[in-house]
């Protein structure tokens, strides 16, 4: 992207936004061209959202905005004004892993862990829409994200284990 030298100082172009991040609402002064991912990582300081490709393909930067899984590398921070953002840091409560996170660990669904945050956020959003009952549904739910380490088998097993245990709880209650 070429810059217009007459407008020499791009940092002057800033706007106030008000966002709720993992349940906590705050106002931020952000550069207009700041990506949402860089905002979350560098301005809010939540480094669990990772950047793998910065062109919306790998899914590592996935966060949930108003209940929808979104690639934070493809949005500007200013576009999130007024929204509620959930990141991987919000999944465990008081250091206790969520059942999905526990299933990931039990099924060796992560190795280097760099892409894991994005997978978790995609799956959390997907599971809110309804259960994942079959392997093909699990694979469909995973297919928007890329992992180079695991071959996905552990993640498929984790999702199905998670879904079965939710079903079990529902049936027993």
């Amino acid at each position: 992207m070429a810059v217009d030298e007459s407008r020499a100082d791009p940092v002057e172009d800033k706007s106030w936004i008000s966002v709720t991040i993992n349940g906590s609402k705050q106002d931020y002064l952000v550069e207009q061209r700041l990506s949402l991912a860089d905002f979350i990582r560098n301005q809010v300081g939540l480094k669990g959202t990772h950047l793998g490709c910065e062109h919306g393909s790998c899914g590592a930067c996935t966060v949930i905005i108003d209940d929808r899984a979104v690639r934070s590398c493809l949005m500007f921070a200013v576009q999130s004004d007024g929204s509620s953002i959930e990141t991987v840091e919000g999944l465990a409560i008081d250091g206790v892993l969520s059942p999905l996170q526990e299933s990931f660990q039990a099924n060796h669904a992560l190795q280097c862990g760099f892409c894991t945050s994005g997978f978790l956020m995609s799956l959390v959003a997907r599971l809110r829409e309804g259960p994942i009952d079959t392997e093909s549904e699990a694979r469909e739910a995973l297919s928007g994200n890329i992992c180079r380490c695991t071959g996905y088998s552990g993640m498929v097993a984790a999702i199905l284990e998670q879904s079965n245990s939710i079903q079990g709880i529902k049936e027993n209650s």
Partner: protein
Amino acid sequence: MSQISEIKENLTVTNIGRGMIRREDPRLLTGQGKFIDDLPFSDFYEAAILRSPHAHARVVSIDTERALKLSGVIAIYTAADLEPIMKDLPPKVSHPKLNYQIRLPMVKEYANYVGEPIAVVVAENRYIAEDALDLIEIEYETLPAVASTHAALRKGGPKVHIGSESNVAVHIIQKAGDPEAALKTAPHVIRETFKITRGGGHSIEGRGVAARFDPITQQLTVWDNTQAPHYVRQMLATIYGMTEDEIRLIAPQDIGGGFGPKAQFYGEEVVIPWIVMQMKHPVKWVEDRWENFISATMERSQTHRVEVGFDEDGHLLVLKDVFEHDQGAYCVGLQVPTITMSTLPGPYVIPNIHSELISCYTNIVPTSSLRGAGRPQAVTVMERMMDRIAEHLGMEPAEIRRRNLIQPDQFPYAVGLLFRDGSPLTYDSGNYPALLEGAVDRIDIVKFRRDQAEARSQGRFLGLGLSMYVEGTGIGPYEGARVRLTNSGKILVTLAASPQGQGYETVYAQVAADAIGVDIDLVEVRHGDTSSIPYGQGTFASRVTATAGPAVWEASELLKSDLLAVAASLLKCDVSSLALSGNSVFIESEPERRVLLYDIALVSNVGRHGMSVPRDLPIAIERTAYFKPVQAVYSSGISAVIVEVDPETGKIEILKSLLGHDCGNVLNPMIVEGQILGGHAHGIGNAIYEEARYSEDGQPQAVSYLDYALPTAIEVPTPELFHVFSPSPLNPLGVKGAGEGGTIPVPGAVANAVEDALRPFGSRICELPLTPERVLRAIYDHD
């Protein structure tokens, strides 16, 4: 899950062999990982790099004036500003006959591939740094580019390096027996040409380097998500003219995948810390995906012309393979093609072998090791030929393999060639028939052939492919581990090698806890900091389990003898009466007489200032061991794949995938299986999807995941796994490497399966990956 077979006589194994869940996971699952770009470098300037847009060009002039005026730009460096470090980056593995072309950290005059670094902008942040890249004006004189080995070998064609007489980097021939004579007398000889194209490592985290110089201690601290921290430190020390102790190289606790490209050494790693010392201000550079596509090393591109001779019964008599290897613009190392040379014979008895490498320079980003490192190519070639022999003789592919396998009583088995580590290619142990029969039993080939015939009658095309391999792992020169009793009574294991997802913090706690006999919760593992252990090599070539594993074991055994000696002194008893358990040492016959590890630390580590200690009391309870393997240890495996090919679309569906694997004793079966599963996915990518294409003038055609197809969960089936355990006699744990075995056989198995499926069409599968276009050409576009 898997179980340990026989790990070591007289060893009580508590933790080794258990699929323990990983200690690393909670932080990674909660977004608390410490990847390089997650570290609090908030006061660091950020760098962006201008890269050559041309595959071959002379840089006539560089004008940075406009860029420097941009607000927020701190400095711009080109080769002219970096004269003291414009030094050669030597290859990892060389050869006396190498036609060596100097590789500099940045372009000085000639850019030899798209992506080669030309200028570094340092700015207040990456956004501004990238703005400034567009304001740098460079005049290029473009030159003819060489974009394939075929073009490189063309008589009178352009040269990759101006002034060189040949594009051949090295020409090496290895022979066993008398292959020429055997080819003349063999009852049957068949020939084929196979081509495998380029692919990348594609760790989801790119490369990254950050550095800070402390003017008070005169120490340079470098954070680098490398697979080989001590190697990088040594390279920097050599180039900068510093001692190794003046440079602290930290590979961050978490690294987002390695797969080989992060084990290489790059110009950016030289330039960024040097700039930091010049500017007296910390700087970081984190590669973006586009940069990764055009500047991280790649692999795989080779063209093989192979001949095999065999008798009426299908016994192999001779193998002759002449192959072109695409070295890229510079020789980063010859490990990949030399591994290809020695991987060809695989698990088979072949009395006469001719393996010939013609490695060529091209105007493309250099190649170097990438998960599998030259082996997937060799295995594809050999296994395709095994299937062709079976076809020629009208035999089952499993039967032709069965007749040629090295038998379990033939170990150690000398192939007659040299391996990449310089030692004779001598397999230490294995059970190849068990792998083959394990796969054959699980596939039920008789039933499959019935299904295949029935499917064909319905116009559906199923195919079965087998592929076997032997993989040299655990190579030298050495790896180190330091084991220490901390002053708080815990055990700290420090590894020289750093992981990129392989779970070292868990696995090596298992090893140390068992070797010492303490509660595993008392054991902590750290890694990746050269200031914590002086020497090391790094994580590559599936080497760490079989080198760092024994090092941890040996250091822990030494530490245990120290702990027992201190306890014997304190309890006034003989060492032989003592046992270790939990957090204490006690007299076996009087368990109430015990000393805590904490007490041992107080006496032997903390001490009482100025007071003498008994002569027989070990002090400073810390032991370091370096394990030096005598040679590689050889893992092995088999892949069996059943596919259905759609002749309308060229789509390949994998109906079943099976992997048999033998890496000797298994320290943590969950982690080993994870390695195999991940490798399998990479193999599927190489077989069907991944291709780094280049135009004839060397322009990369796949520079995003929109045009480079990395497999997702839809494309990768979960394979069925089975294990065979052939412990290595060459290290005390009986272990071998497991990081690449899932990848190596899969492309060959898929290629065999597709040709088997398409046999009614007479299709010849000779080129990977098997994109729909290639499959359709194989069906409809042949003689």
